[in-house]
C-alpha cells in the first residue's frame, strides 16, 4: 500500500478506536467525583506533552515480545511490533489526548440544568449521555475527531519505534518523507508534504466553516 493510503487507513482505524474509548472515558470522567480525577486527567493528557519518541518507547516496552504482555500477544499471533497494528496503536495513543481534552471541555460546557431535567424525568446516566450530552456537544466532538485524525495522520516518533519503517506495511506519509529526505529524493518528499498539508488544511478549514455555518443557522433561527 502506498504511504498516502496507508496513512489514511491507519488514521481512520486509530480514530475509530479513539472515539470509542474516548467517549467512554469522557462519560466516566465527567460523572465521577473522586479525588484522583486530576491525576487521571494528567495521565491521560501525558502523551500530548511528552516527546512522541518517549511514548513510542513506553509502547515498545509494553508490546515488545521480550516482555510479559507482548510475549503473550506474540504467542497468540497478535503481535503488534513492526506491523500495521503497531502504527495504529501509536497513532491512537498519541492522538487520544487531543480528542479527550476537546470532547471533555465540550461535554462540560453542556448546560448541567438540562441534564438535571433529564434525570428528574427518569433517564439513566447513559441515556442522558447519548440523547442529551452528545447531541449538544456535537461540534466539540467533531472538532476533537478532526484534530485527532490530523494528529494520527502526522504521527512519526512513536510509530517508527513500535512499527518500524517497512515499505507498504508501516511506512506512513511522515515516515516516507523521512526516508525520501534521507535518500536525497527531495521531490518525492515534497509531493507527500503537499498531500499531507493540503489534506490537513482542508480538514481544519472544514471545522471552521462548519462552526460558522452552524452559528449563522442559530442567528437565523433567533
Amino acid at each position, binding site marked *: 500500500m502506498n504511504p498516502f493510503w496507508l496513512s489514511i487507513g491507519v488514521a481512520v482505524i486509530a480514530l475509530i478506536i479513539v472515539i470509542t474509548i474516548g467517549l467512554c472515558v469522557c462519560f466516566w470522567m465527567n460523572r465521577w467525583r473522586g479525588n484522583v480525577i486530576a491525576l487521571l486527567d494528567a495521565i491521560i493528557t501525558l502523551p500530548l506533552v511528552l516527546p512522541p519518541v518517549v511514548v513510542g518507547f513506553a509502547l515498545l516496552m509494553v508490546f515488545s515480545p521480550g516482555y510479559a504482555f507482548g510475549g503473550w500477544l506474540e504467542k497468540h499471533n497478535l503481535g503488534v511490533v513492526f506491523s500495521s497494528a503497531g502504527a495504529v496503536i501509536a497513532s491512537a495513543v498519541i492522538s487520544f489526548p487531543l480528542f479527550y481534552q476537546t470532547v471533555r471541555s465540550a461535554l462540560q460546557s453542556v448546560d448541567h440544568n438540562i441534564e438535571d*431535567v433529564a434525570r*428528574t424525568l427518569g433517564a439513566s446516566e447513559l441515556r442522558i449521555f447519548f440523547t442529551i450530552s452528545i447531541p449538544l456537544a456535537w461540534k466539540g466532538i467533531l472538532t476533537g475527531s478532526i484534530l485527532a485524525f490530523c494528529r494520527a495522520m502526522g504521527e512519526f516518533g512513536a510509530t517508527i519505534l513500535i512499527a518500524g519503517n517497512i515499505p507498504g506495511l508501516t511506512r506512513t506519509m511522515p515516515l516516507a518523507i523521512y526516508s525520501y529526505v534521507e535518500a536525497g529524493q527531495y521531490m518525492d518528499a515534497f509531493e507527500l508534504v503537499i498531500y499531507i498539508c493540503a489534506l490537513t488544511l482542508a480538514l481544519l478549514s472544514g471545522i471552521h466553516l462548519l462552526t460558522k455555518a452552524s452559528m449563522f443557522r442559530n442567528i437565523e433561527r433567533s
Partner: protein
Amino acid sequence: MITFSFTVARPTIIVKADGVLPSGITVLTGQSGSGKSTFIKSIAGLVKPSTGIIRYDETTWVDRDRKVWVPAQERQVGYMPQGNIVFPHMSVEKNITYSNRGTPKICDELLVRLGLEKYRHTKAGRLSGGEQQRVALGRALYSKPTVLLLDEPLSALDWNLRKQVRQELMDIIREWDVPCLWVTHDESDVAAVGDRHWICEAGIIRTGCICKHT
C-alpha cells in the same frame, strides 16, 4: 404531601429547611444566593442533604441517618430549572415524551392544552421563550409528577411576556392539580401566583405565610 427536615452544607452556603409542602401553589422568594435553588434541588434529588429527611407521603426519599437515598430518576418530580431548559435539538413532541412515564394520549392532550399542536415536529430550540416555557411545563406534566418544582420559570423571559406566561403556567398547574413549589425573586409573583408564601433568608427556609390569592 412532601415532608422535609434537612440541612445542606456546602462551602458557599448552608441551607436549613423544615416543613411540609401541601397541595396548591407555594411561592418561595428570597434574594439571589440565599439558597432557594439548593433547596429545590434537594427536593428534586439533585443535591444530597448533609443531614435530615425528605419524605413523600409514606415513601422516604432521604434519610441520612438510615443511609436512605432515592435518586432523582426515581422520585417522579417535575423540575423546571432557570433559563432555557428545553432539549433544543429535539422536536416539541420528543421533548414532552422524553420521560417514559406518560402515554401518547397525555402527550396529545398536553400539546392541545399548551397550544403547541402546530409545533409538534418543530425543534424546541427554534421556539420563542414563552413557547419554550410551555414545552418545559408540558414535559414535566407528562411525567405524571408527584410535585412540580419551578425554579424561576419566568427569569429567561422579557418583562412584557412574563405576565402572560405566568398566567398560562398558573392556569395549567391548577387544572392538573399538582402540588407546586414556585421559586422566584420577583415579589409580584407572590400575590399573583401563590396560595402560600415561603421565604428563604440566608439559607433558612421560613414556611407558613398565607398569600392573598387573586
